[in-house]
C-alpha cells in the first residue's frame, strides 16, 4: 500500500521536527492513517532530528501506537478494576465469539478490531464497552450482542 507522503509533510510542518516531537508526530500520523505505516516512519526519520531507533523505540513502547492496520470500528472492552469485578472477561469472550476473532485482533473484512483496554475512567458505569464512538455502560453479554448486531445493521456489515 503506498502512503501519501504529503500528509506526513503537513504533520511535520504543524508539529515541528525536533526530537521531542516524536510522540505528537506519531499521534498525528496515526490519527490520519489509523496505524503507523512503515513508509511514513521512514519519511519522518529522513526529515526530522528523530533517529530510526528513537522513533521505533517510541512506537513500540506506547500501547496507543499500532504498526498494522485496524478495523473500521474499534471495540474497546474496558478491563479496569470495577469492570473486571463486574464481568469484563465475559464481555471479551462474548465479543470474541460474536466476531470470530481473538482479543486484540481484526476481522478479516477489516470491519472490526477487538481490544481490551486498561481503564476508560467511567468506573461507576462498569462494565463499560466503547463501540466505535459510543460508550456503553452497565453492559451485559446480551446487551453487547444486541448493540453489535445493531451496529452491523447500520454499517452494512454481515451478520454473524
Amino acid at each position, binding site marked *: 500500500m503506498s502512503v501519501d507522503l504529503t500528509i506526513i509533510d503537513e504533520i511535520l510542518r504543524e508539529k515541528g521536527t525536533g526530537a521531542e516531537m516524536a510522540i505528537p508526530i506519531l*499521534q498525528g500520523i496515526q490519527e490520519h492513517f489509523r496505524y503507523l505505516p512503515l513508509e511514513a516512519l521512514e519519511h519522518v526519520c529522513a526529515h526530522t532530528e528523530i533517529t530510526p531507533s528513537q522513533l521505533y523505540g517510541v512506537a513500540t513502547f506506547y500501547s496507543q501506537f499500532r504498526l498494522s492496520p485496524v478495523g473500521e470500528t474499534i471495540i474497546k472492552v474496558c478491563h479496569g478494576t470495577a469492570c473486571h469485578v463486574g464481568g469484563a472477561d465475559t464481555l471479551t469472550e462474548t465479543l470474541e465469539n460474536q466476531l470470530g476473532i481473538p482479543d486484540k485482533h481484526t476481522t478479516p473484512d477489516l470491519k472490526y478490531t477487538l481490544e481490551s483496554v486498561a481503564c476508560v*475512567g467511567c468506573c461507576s458505569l462498569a462494565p463499560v464497552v466503547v463501540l466505535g464512538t459510543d460508550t456503553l455502560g452497565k453492559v451485559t453479554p446480551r446487551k453487547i450482542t444486541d448493540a453489535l448486531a445493531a451496529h452491523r445493521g447500520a454499517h452494512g456489515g454481515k451478520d454473524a
Partner: protein
Amino acid sequence: MTTPTSTHEKRRPRLVVGLGSCGIAAGAREVHRHLKGRLAAEPAWDVELAITGCNGMCHREPLVELHDADGKVFLYGDMTPKKVDMVLEKHLRGGEPVERLLLREDRPDSSAGAFLAKQRRIVLRHCGTIDPESLHAYRAVGGWEALQTALTRGADWVLSEMKKSGLRGRGGAGFPTGLKWEFTRKAPGDRKVVVCNADEGDPGAFMDRSVLESDPHAVLEGMAIAAATIGADRGYIYCRAEYPLAVERLRRAIDQARSAGLLGAGIFGTGFAFDIQVKEGAGAFVCGEETALLASIEGRRGMPRPRPPFPAQKGLWDLPTNINNVETYANVPWIIQNGGDAFASVGTEKSRGSKVFALAGKIRRGGLAEVPMGITIREIVEDVAGGSSTGRPIKAVQMGGPSGGCIPVDLFDTRIDYDEVNRTGAIMGSGGLVVMDETTCMVDVARFFLHFTKDESCGKCTFCRIGTTRMLELLEKICAGEGAAADLKLLEELAHQVKNTSLCGLGQTAPNPVLTTLRYFRHEYEAHILERRCPAGVCKALTTFEITPETCTGCDACMQNCPVQAISGVRGARGSYVIDQKRCTRCGVCREVCKFGAVKTH
C-alpha cells in the same frame, strides 16, 4: 449543585445539563440535543440552556438542573428525552415540580442528600455548578483572583500559606506540596518548569478526569500560582490520551486564558510571564511516575531513572521542575483565597484538607465524592456510597489501584489519613476506591492487578520485569486449581524482592495487592490450593454453577441472559431450569440476573 436561594426578582429560567464523560456515556448528549430542539421550538418559554461538568453523582446521570424564575434550583436525575418532556410540560409550563424524578440534595434522608451530606467540597467546588467551557463562568465565582492575590502578596507569602495549609501531594505519595515548591524555587537556574501530572492511569480512578472536564481553569490557575512562586515561565500538562474530552476542555481553557491575558507575558500588569501546553500521553501507565513522565514529554520511551537528582533539581531538559498532580493544583487557588489555616482546619493532624475518591464496584451510589480527611472507610462505603448494591455483604475495598491493596471489612474503621491507610498495607493512592462483595474472589483480584503491572512494567529493572511475570504465573496456577502449598511462600518471597529491588514506584508497589490479600484473605488462597475450591465462585476451573430447583421460580431470566445458551427450562414452571455443564462457560451472568438467589456455585 447549588441549594435553593430566595429572591423576589424574577429571572430567566435556566436548564443545565451535566456533560462530563460519565454523563455523556449515560446519554446526556442525547438529552441535551433533545432539550435544545424543544426549546428552539418554543421560544416563548425564554429559557437559557447551559452545560456543566460532573457533580459526582455518576449513578444518577444524565442530570438536568432547572433554575426557575424565582431562583429556586431543582435537580432531576436519570433523565431521558421522554422524562425531559415531562419536566418541560409539568414543571416549566405547569409550575409543578415532578416529585418522583427529583433528586433532593437538601434532604439528608434522600439518596442525593445522603451522598452529599458527609462531603466537603474544595477541589470539586465548581464541578457540576459552572460551565467548564466558559472563562466567564469561572471568573464569576472568583476564578483567577487567587493568582492576582499571589502576585500581589509575593512568593514568600504564597509559600508560607502553602506550608501552613499542610497540603500533601494528591497523586498518591503524599509529599508536602509547599516543601516541594520551596525546593524548586531554591534550585539554581534561570529557567524553571511547572508540570501537571494528568496521566491518571490507575484502573478504577477518574478523579482527575472529572476535575479537568468540569473545572479546567482551576488547574491552570493552580499551575500559574506555582509558576509565579518558583519562578517558572512555562508549564506542561501531561494528560492521558484516553481522556479526549479533558484534553479538549483544557485546550479551550488555555486559549481563553491567553486571550484574556491570564497566560502569556505581563500577567495582571506585572512582569510575570507564563504559558502552558498540553502534552498527550500515549498509553503507558509507567508515565505516571515523574521521571518517566518527563522522559515522555522529551519524546523518549517513558522509562524512570534513579533519583536523586530529583526533578526539583534536574527535571525537564535538566531544568528545575515542579511536578504535582491535577487534584493538588486544583486545591491551590482555594488555599490562596481562603488561607492556609482554613485548609488546615479540615482533616487530621498529618493529613490536612479533603480527598476526592472515585467510588465504584458493588455499591448503590457510585461516583465522585470529596470527603474530609479523617472520615472512616465505613462512612464512605455505608453513608456516602449507600452500602451494597447487590444485597450481599461487602467484603473489602480496594484502595490505591495496582499500587494499593484490599482492606477487609473488619478494618473499615480505619480513617482516611496517609499514615493510617499505609498501616493496613494499602495506600491512599490517587483515590480509586472499588468496593467488593462476597462474589469477588480476592485471589482473582490479585491476579488481575499483577496482570496489569506485568503488562505495564517498562522492563528496566529485572525484578519488576521478571518478578511480576513469575508472580502472575503463580497466581494463574492457583486460580486454575493447580496451586501447591509452597506457592504462597514463594509468592511472598518474590513480592519482597520485587519491592526492594525496583527503581520506581511501579515496581516498589506492584506486589501490594498480593501482599494485602495474602494478609487478610489467606483463607481464600488456601481454599483454592488445599480444597480446590473458589469460595467466591469466580475462578472458572474451580467453580460449577447450579440452579436450586426449590428456589427457582421459572422466571426465565437466566435462560434469556445466558450468552452461550447453556440453560434450558420451561417458562413459568418452577424448578424446571437446568444448566448444561458442558456448554457453561462459568461467566456468572445467571447468578447476577437471578433475583431469587437460585443460582449457586460450588
